[in-house]
């Protein structure tokens, strides 16, 4: 189990609880999994419902629950990536594939009205905290039956029941979580707010401001930096001075640094920081490295290049070559430097995308379980997620051009 708060007080007919009903009684997979049984599934929780049990102490690590959460996150993201490729998800889609270890490790400590503020890469956090996954999928697919009636899309998902809010503006999750923490401190002492953000976001002023504010006001907030090394197509270290962990620490945040592909490590470190925060000892910063094999978003141009180098080279190559050879322009030196930049970027991406694929938290997490248990979890989660996606696909239908009925080239 992710924590000691005991079995949830309610059951719902959501897909998740279907999964759980099947699982009930399984000794490896206890039912009382608050990560997957969030407040939102149980109706708006009352203050009295919030058990203070376990608050203030790091909570125990349950490999099966963690694995199960990660599997579900992965499957939902994969299902949405496929739906995106099939033309069922409008706009961009930023999957959290590769970051499940970080999210699951942290979420293992959240219960009741603990809150989250998220960025554009947010699906796994909602899934892990128990947002109805069909509603989530429908939202991402632009349906009026979605979690937010089609108004949010995947970058601005909102689930007041958890509570959790996503904001597509890079860096905003920090101060939003600080605000949640202010409310916790007054209204529900012991609760924490968690902000997830990327390493690229650490150069956004408001996020740094929010570190300072959290420390100055000694707020119960945990900032989680998921360092996947890239912000869209920019390698973070190319545009970042100093060391971001030292940076966080210089604000007076208590910092921990872990490998994000080891969910148990994340869980342990997050537990220490969250326990401090809950007991009024101040905010924390958890730094976890990870890899995003799918790129920034589905259709990421660098991933396209790595996957189909010839096709992409055909597309980009001619005009780059033409430009590099243009009569007017920079000096030879400038152009060589440019070629180096482009080649270097691709080379580094290629290196990251081969060497770092080993950093799969779900694969690693699987090794924490015995084979049979892992398989059982996988098959149940597959069932669950497939069902949700097939319901969602059924609900939206094929929807050419996403249901836009008019408009056209003149």
């Amino acid at each position, binding site marked *: 189990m992710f924590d000691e708060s005991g079995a949830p007080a309610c059951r719902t007919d959501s897909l998740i609880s279907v999964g759980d009903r099947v699982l009930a009684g399984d000794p490896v997979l206890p039912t009382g999994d608050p990560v997957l049984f969030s407040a939102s599934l149980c109706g708006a929780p009352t203050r009295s419902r919030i058990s203070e049990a376990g608050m203030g102490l790091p909570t125990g690590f349950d490999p099966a629950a963690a694995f199960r959460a990660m599997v579900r996150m992965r499957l939902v993201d994969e299902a949405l990536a496929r739906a995106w490729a099939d033309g069922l998800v409008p706009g961009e889609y930023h999957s959290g594939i590769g970051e499940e270890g970080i999210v699951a490790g942290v979420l293992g400590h959240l219960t009741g009205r603990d809150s989250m503020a998220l960025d554009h890469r947010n699906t796994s956090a909602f899934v892990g905290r128990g947002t109805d996954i069909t509603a989530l999928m429908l939202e991402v697919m632009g349906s009026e039956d979605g979690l937010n009636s089609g108004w949010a899309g995947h970058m601005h998902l909102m689930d007041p029941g958890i509570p959790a809010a996503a904001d597509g503006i890079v860096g905003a999750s920090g101060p939003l979580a600080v605000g949640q923490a202010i*409310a916790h401190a007054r209204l529900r002492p012991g609760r924490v707010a968690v902000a997830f953000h990327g390493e690229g976001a650490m150069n956004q002023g408001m996020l740094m401001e929010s570190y300072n504010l959290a420390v100055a006001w000694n707020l119960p907030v945990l900032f989680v930096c998921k360092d996947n090394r890239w912000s869209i197509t920019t390698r973070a270290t190319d545009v970042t001075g100093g060391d971001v962990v030292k940076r966080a620490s210089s604000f007076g945040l208590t910092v921990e640094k872990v490998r994000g592909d080891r969910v148990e490590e994340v869980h342990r470190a997050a537990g220490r920081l969250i326990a401090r925060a809950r007991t009024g000892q101040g905010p924390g910063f958890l730094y976890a490295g990870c890899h995003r094999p799918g790129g920034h978003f589905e259709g990421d141009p660098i991933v396209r290049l790595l996957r189909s180098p010839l096709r992409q080279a055909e597309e980009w190559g001619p005009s780059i070559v033409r430009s590099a050879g243009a009569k007017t322009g920079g000096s030879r030196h400038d152009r060589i430097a440019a070629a180096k930049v482009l080649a270097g970027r691709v080379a580094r991406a290629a290196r990251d995308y081969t060497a770092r694929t080993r950093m799969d938290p779900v694969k690693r997490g699987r090794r924490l379980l015995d084979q049979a248990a892992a398989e059982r979890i996988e098959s149940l989660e597959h069932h669950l997620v497939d069902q949700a996606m097939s319901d969602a696909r059924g609900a939206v239908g094929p929807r050419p051009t996403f249901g836009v009925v008019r408009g056209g080239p003149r």
Partner: protein
Amino acid sequence: MTVMKYGQAIDYALGETMARDDDVLTWGEDVMLIHRDLLARFGPERVRDTPISESAFLYAGIGAAMAGLRPVVEIMLVDFLAVAWSGIANAASKFRDFSGGSWEVPLVVRAGCGGWYTDGGQHVQTLWGQLSAYPNINVVCPSTPADAAGLMLTAVQSDEVVVFLEHQLLSEQWIDYLGGGSRATVSFDRLVPADGAEGDVPLPLEPLPLGQAALRREGSDVALISLGVGAHRCLEAAEALASSGIEASVLDLRCVSPLDGNAVIEQARKAGRVVVVDEDYVRGGLTGEIAALLLEAGVTTKYARVAVEGTIPFAPHLEYAALPNADRIAAAVKGLE
């Protein structure tokens, strides 16, 4: 009924809501000293100084509002809100809609605005037109202590976002805080509209609904439409015009958003001549929106605007000339003849 100053009236209303509702609290730069009376009454947890981090503490207000509090976030001067603009443009105005209507943001953003007291082009803007461009953002700027109190009460009790702009020329707090109080050598008497800075406040306080204009003066020849200090400048101009036989009505909008379109149209229909007086920039402020309302309603009217045409200069006489002063208003009215 009691006489209050403008800033005092706002803090009075805020104090009353804070006394009734523990979830109301306020933060911002220097609020502990500026609102020392509220601090003394409610303590440092509910009246709290912030670092100079407008983005973070505005977004924090949004987060806190969504997590159960009713924060009144003070951004000293509205010009500084520009460093936190995304909080308005991308968050406060959007989150209720993003949530599909299921999540409210009961937030008040309080800020000083406006000029006439000479603080240079980065400290005297109003920006109210732009703020009201965003969905779900109510924007008010009261012109009297009574309105200030009533609107603050409404703002704090509202489940929506309200940007509460207090005009710096009317606010004894701002005039004093910016050093005015310590020199007898400067007087703002010629500039400060006396019954804007101080006046009767009916007690017990009643919330003043958003979007209700007040007709400050009747007159059938021309309708002057404004708010904040502008409403007072209109009254000044109306007196001057009366002596040349022109009777002007003066409509004080009180709220930029929602805007009392009916009242505007009614005055315009009656007079057939409209002058919109706006301390915001000529583009994107009040003047265009009112013109659009009139045209949409098919009102046939002559129309002129008196607004801020560019950067507001520092030098007081230049500032005075650049702001919608009574002379400019009267000239605009005469230009309509």
